[in-house]
């Protein structure tokens, strides 16, 4: 097993002195390549913070975080940008599509700057939106928008996809479609998927589950009995 991510003593503190918030308190974790990893934990336990540091959006206060042999904690801003551009796809709770671009154009936004992209239409087929490529975000439902966001993340064929509460704003039926798409991407393309959620049942589809509490890893569990997303209820 090769690890995509390795962290050692990772901490992240917001503010100083009395009012300091310790979002991460020394996290040591490994994320194996090609797996779906679900991160669980109560609200405020540090899930997003860890995701953001691994995704190159935020910086650790101390400790190290490596993506393969790259030391994320030592990179300049420009290098981090490059890192996100070349290796990472993001999916957020609120989709973050460009409202002024159609579904296809939103995907092309990324494929234009990617090294080894698939065609935008192909990515949209993959998420089941082949018929809606020319719609603007305002003309799509929440679930469809989230699937465009996934298509956009997938289209550049990243090594890793980060999903922060991807189903958070969706009803469970729509959420399940989104999870199926993610599962499909992992199976077909071998993309490592690191997903944050507070819906514990979603962990059933993961290869591995990481539980955080109060800024530290509580436990890491390998899931011997993965369930297909279609069978998950939450």
């Amino acid at each position: 097993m090769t690890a995509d991510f390795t962290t050692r003593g990772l901490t992240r503190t917001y503010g100083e002195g009395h009012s300091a918030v310790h979002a991460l308190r020394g996290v040591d974790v490994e994320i194996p390549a090609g797996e779906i990893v679900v991160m669980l934990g109560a609200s405020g336990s540090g899930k997003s913070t860890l995701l953001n540091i691994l995704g190159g959006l935020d910086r650790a206060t101390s400790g190290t975080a490596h993506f393969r042999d790259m030391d994320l904690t030592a990179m300049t801003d420009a290098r981090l940008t490059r890192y996100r551009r070349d290796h990472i796809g993001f999916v957020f709770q609120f989709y973050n599509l460009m409202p002024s671009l159609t579904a296809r154009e939103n995907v092309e936004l990324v494929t234009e700057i990617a090294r080894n992209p698939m065609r935008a239409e192909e990515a949209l087929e993959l998420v089941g939106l082949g018929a809606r490529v020319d719609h603007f975000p305002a003309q799509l439902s929440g679930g469809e928008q989230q699937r465009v966001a996934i298509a956009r993340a997938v289209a550049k064929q990243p090594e890793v996809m980060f999903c922060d509460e991807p189903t958070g704003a969706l009803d469970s039926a729509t959420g399940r479609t989104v999870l199926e798409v993610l599962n499909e991407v992992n199976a077909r393309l071998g993309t490592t998927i690191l997903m944050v959620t507070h819906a514990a049942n979603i962990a059933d589809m993961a290869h591995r589950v990481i539980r955080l509490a109060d800024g530290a890893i509580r436990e890491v569990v390998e899931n011997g009995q993965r369930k297909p997303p279609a069978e998950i209820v939450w």
Partner: protein
Amino acid sequence: MVSPLDRKLLRDLRRMKAQVIAIGAVIATGVLLQVMMSGLVASLTETRRAYYERNRLAEVFAPLTRAPEAELARIAAIPGVARAEGRIAGAALIDMPDEAVPLQARALSLPDRSERGLNAVYMISGALPDPAARDEALLIEGFAKAHGLGPGDRLTVTLNGARRVLRIAGTAQAPDMLYTAVPGEMMPDAARFAVLWMPRAALAAAYDMDGAFNETLVTLARGASEQAVIDRIDAILRPWGGTGAYGRDQLVSDRFVTEEINGLRTMSRVMPPIFLAVAAFILYIVVSRMVQSEREEIGLLKAFGYTGAEVGAHYFKLVMIIAIGGALAGCLGGIASGRAMIGVYTTFYNFPFLVFRPDPAAFATGVAASVLAASAGGLFVLRRVFRLAPAEAMRPPAPGDFSRSIRLDGPVGRRLDQPTRMVLRGLSRQPLRAAALAAGIAAGMALSAGMTTIYTSFDRVMEMNFSVVDRSDATVLFTHPLSERAAFSLARIPGVLQVEPMRDVPAILRNGRLSHRGAITGMPAAPEMTRAIDADQRPIPLPAEGVVLGEALADVLQVRAGDMLRIEVTNGRQPVLEVPVTQVARTLLGAPAYMRIDSLNRAMREPGLISGLHVRVDAAQADAIWLSLKDMPAVAGVSVAEDMQASLQKLMDQGAGSARYIMGAIAFIITFGIVFNAARIAYDERAHDLASLRVMGFTRAEAAFVLLGELGLITLASLPVGSLAGYGLAQAIAEGFSTELYQIPAGYDPFSHGFAALFIVGAALVSGWLIKRDLDRADLVLALKTRE
């Protein structure tokens, strides 16, 4: 207890500090100009009125050659005349040891009991001369100050050709001498023109006026008709060489002060509204942006049970705090700058006392206008607050609907990359907003281009007047018309390269009921030194019959080429001419009327007479030449072009013209404010999209393009529109600045417009850079947490 909404208000104000200050400053500037200018108008008007009243300025003036004092009784007996006095007035020369040319002066007789007479002097220092003294005089304060003279000092003066030394008894001002200029020059210059007041007996002896007078001063009874009195006075004085009585409003001194006040009044009406409109506009876009981004909070407040009016009041308070704060700052600034500006008027006008008294009405209108302008901006926004449904807060954030923006799937559109599409769609989705921003920037362009045009126009006036219109080195005026032979004797002075004769005769020009008291200038048919020029700077040849009028004069008389004009010469045989206006000349200084000297002399039946000469001299010998002119008794004065140029420059830089610097600076500051606010708002609206782009791995420059591309396009689109508006604005401001004294031409000046365009682009770049800094610093994680 402070309500939570009010606490939010304070926090909002602190958060938007830069914008609050910028908008407040624009409002303050508008109010400042309003308070300052209307205060100056009020102060000048009131001071002048009080001064005239206290020092009994005559209401009708009637110059003549010479009349026995007994005639005064007849004038006093005219119905409607309250009081009639005669005085002696004459031209004089002062020989200052450190001046190359003799300086011109006007000598006036003091009334025997000067504390009672008309046009009473206002003593500044020293004492009145002893009525019996022969060699004592009062000197006008401005001249005394300029030359460091005071009571007890001595002056070498030529009175009626006789040279003598006078002792300065004191310094003074007088209400008929608010504005003093060298005859024939018009530029006020305290250092180069003096007024001397002497006891009547002494002056009578010098000018051969024993028991006689040559200027009548008259005040009117309440309700008397000025014109009727003038007609009767003219009838009485005609046999005595009367050159036409005129009312106070035709008094040169009063006329120029009136022009100044009118100019100020025009400006005080034009400028403040422009600033307030700009402020209202910025306020509107800033607050509407704020309401847009606080949609959810507003919905939430309403859901909690706050009424639309309560929530609206919260935003309205914000608008009012900025408006009233700006207006109050403007009032204070207006008082301070009014006090500073009033000093300018004491330099150029001989007011003995001049206190800046702000017009209370200006405060009221200033504050009211700011509140109104801000409310107008605020009301549009409030409508949205009212319309917003409480449910809005509960809805998930909906992306803006771009389905009706441009499609971009044509052959060109398909080649565009996605960031460019975002720019174009952003613009096309809200064309009104884009147009509003463009309009704002265009307003800035107009202000800057307009003001720069005015700057360059001032310089152009100088340059053109002294290199195209008047190319002489000096103008020599004689005490009385001489034969042309005088020209030859002058031309023989070593170093004099060229002379050109001229003849000035005082005249009243009339077109129907419009009239102007001025002079006709006779010149050779094709003069080489001082010329009438047309709009293309080509010399206008003078016709054998007819007159060429300067622009300002043609305006006053409302005549055009081809119209007939009545010219009543008030000198010599006083002929009346009916002549056509053959052409209107482009003038920069003064309001001249040109005729051929031979036609003029024929009309006067005084062939071959000249009243002065334009000369060109060898620069190395200039001082020696002026020195030899000092000793010629027939020379009334020498105006050296260099001195005139310096006076004009001073007037434009320190006088009323100096306002252009302030206004120019303000224009550029405002322009920057508009551009920066436009950019800032565009950024606030896009912050979230930009963060998303950065998360996806777009570099800073790539993300900035999406933001600044839009700003850039809007800026570019606004330039031509602004340029056009700037052209119009320059015309209006030039009109405001132009007086009979100098006319500011404001054509399309490519340099000014280019400069303004560069400034706008520069401002856009700096704004872009400032905002790109924010963009660089933006915390990606934070930006993604906030929705919308």
